[in-house]
């Protein structure tokens, strides 16, 4: 986890990159999330002060959009596509299997901070459905048997 002073410094640099332009708030938050993998509380407070936007409004935007997370996320981000095409091809069974395997619900991160489970409304790869995106890799035609294999491999790689 980054130190508070690092978070503040990095946040200020990001705000500066966008020239403090108030309309760039969403882009600023996207950059912060890219830097820290989530939006740390200190960063949101710093953004408000540096851009002259009330912290409450920064918080409103940060919680309105699905892309933002206020909690630290795991090393691997597992995104289950729950778009309509994947839904009719059995995405919910795949989601259940991930929940059972990782022992977390969507929006949560497991205890050793290795995996976060998230839902996404269609990634536009419907031919691959049900599809799961882990970090940046697409896993198509998912089955419950594949879940064990993929998670096993990622755990091995992490060790």
């Amino acid at each position, binding site marked *: 986890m980054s130190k508070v002073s690092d978070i503040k410094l990095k946040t200020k640099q990001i705000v500066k990159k966008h020239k403090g332009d108030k309309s760039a708030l*969403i*882009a600023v938050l*996207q950059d912060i999330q890219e830097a820290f993998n989530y939006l740390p509380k200190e960063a949101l407070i710093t953004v408000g002060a540096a851009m002259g936007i009330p912290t409450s*409004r920064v918080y409103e935007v940060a919680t309105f959009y699905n892309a933002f997370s206020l909690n630290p996320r795991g090393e691997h981000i597992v995104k289950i596509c729950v778009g309509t095409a994947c*839904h*009719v091809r059995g995405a919910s069974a795949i989601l*259940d299997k991930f929940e059972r395997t990782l022992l977390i619900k969507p929006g949560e991160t497991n205890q050793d901070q290795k995996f976060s489970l998230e839902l996404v409304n269609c990634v536009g790869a*419907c*031919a691959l459905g049900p599809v799961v995106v882990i970090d940046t890799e*697409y896993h198509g035609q998912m089955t419950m048997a594949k879940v064990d294999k993929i998670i096993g491999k990622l755990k091995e790689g992490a060790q």
Partner: protein
Amino acid sequence: MIKMNNTQALRQVQDDLKSQYDPKKKLVTICAGTGCRGYGCIKVKEELEAEIKKQNMDVEVRATGCFGFCEKGPLVIIHPEKIFYQQVKIKDVPDIISKTVAQGEVLEKLLYRDPQTNETVMKEEDVPFYKKQNRLVFGQNGMIDPTRIEDYLVIDGYSALAKALSGMTPEGVISEVKKAGLRGRGGGGFLAGIKWEGSRRAHGEPKYVIGNGDEGDPGAYMDRSLMEGNPHSVIEGMIIGAYAIGASEGYIYVRNEYPLAVIHLTMAIESAREAGLLGRNILGTDFSFDIKISKGGGAFVCGESSALFASIEGRAGEPRAKYVHAVEKGLWDKPTVLNNVETWANVPLIISKGADWYASIGTENSKGTKIFSLVGKINNTGLIEVPMGMTLREIIYGMGGGIPKGRKFKAVQTGGPSGGCIPESLLDLQVDFDRLYEVGSMMGSGGMIVMDDRSCMVDVAKYFLAFLQEESCGKCVPCREGVRRMREILEDICAGKGEEGDVELLEHISTGVADGSLCALGGSAPNPVLSTIKYFREEYDAHIRDHRCPAGVCKALITYSIDPEKCTGCGLCIKVCPTQAVSGEKKKAHTINNDLCTRCGACIESCKFDAINVK
């Protein structure tokens, strides 16, 4: 790219590029759309390049935009013969290079095999999936490397812009677009020309044009494929639109989940600017216009115009009342034209080939072609572009190849969460804006999700309402609370707790939600429920009265059992069952304890003998 200061310079560059282009030269194109990337096409491309180098050949390998036939990716075409290979794997690469590219020998095993005739098909255009398409907007994807402006210029890209700037007045452009009858491809289907005219007449500076690439409808991905595969066609359309309405600034609002689209659009904007096609004094004229990219934050409601403006302005995407239209007061309260990216990509065609030509395609009130994403329980998943007015039957059975595993078609869902489910009895419906609306659905952005007899229509309605409740911004109470209540009722029905009168209650709440919501999200939220009630009432009744889910989907209403005739006692299901609900001796028929069974489906997936029955 040199900066072009007039239309003659553009023509010169195009001619130079054409003279360098040898149609007989060997070229390998590989689809690098997101679907094919998911199948690993980038590794295949690298292998193709390595093999060509190894064999000391001079052949270009071009990673292009999406070809559309996602079901069979990775897709490769060998030019100039146009040999169409599908499901290409790394191990196929040496043969492709040494046999097909070097000697023209066709590899039978990589060709598409028509399941109806069992014959192989050599060329892309002869594959049934492509045969009846009319790929005016989408067709160039397969030849263009979206990261190179030259590939767009060589096929006369930006000629429509040159034509508009050098020979047409802004009013002339608007009247051409009006005459063409172009309607918005993003959902509402409003006439683009009327919108443009309103904005041209409106007072206020600067004026804006916006490309809506916030493709939120789950199951629709044509906008993504256009932005990724042919970004210049969208940009050219927007520049022409900006000229017509007198706008100086533009935005393309791209969905957060589409990183590749952002990269390709950014590159395209930069190279267009460098070439003098964007920025100050475009092609040496007085007209100046530039485009910025705004990345969405992942909110479905931001596809709605006023919510999208709020998002670009850096605020939470809440819609506002529209007694003042966006064409007069849109982004930052200035006159704004917002069109979907597919709509923009149609504009260069209209200007180049003329309104009369464009209006000759399609139906009476829906002109041109439309790209649909054909997904779900369908054999040929992919993107198709067809003239408006084609029947659902032709799309689903002709191009889509019907339902997998010979199962029975049940419904096709169009229009995303705002649309509806269309039953088998309406398969001969000619698809256009008005016909879809008449049957209780809508065009939306063009998603078509096909469902078979194993899809439960109550579950589908519940799915969409859950989606909409999650995505409702919360501003209007009827939408925020009404959609939630409808979802709860549907959940109860699916859980076997439905009561007589629930259906009528759903209909009653629907009226309130539709009437009492500001924007189209709430206004159309009841559609998935109303259309399924209208066409599949008997499924609701089976859930409520008989506590039965005929499609075998709703977990609380189904039981699993093992067919002793089919079960061989292999023990696989025992191994995968997470709740130890299956028992039995080896080589003897197993049984399922329904008190322990959670209906997770693991046994069904593992069983090689199709021995698990769901009732």
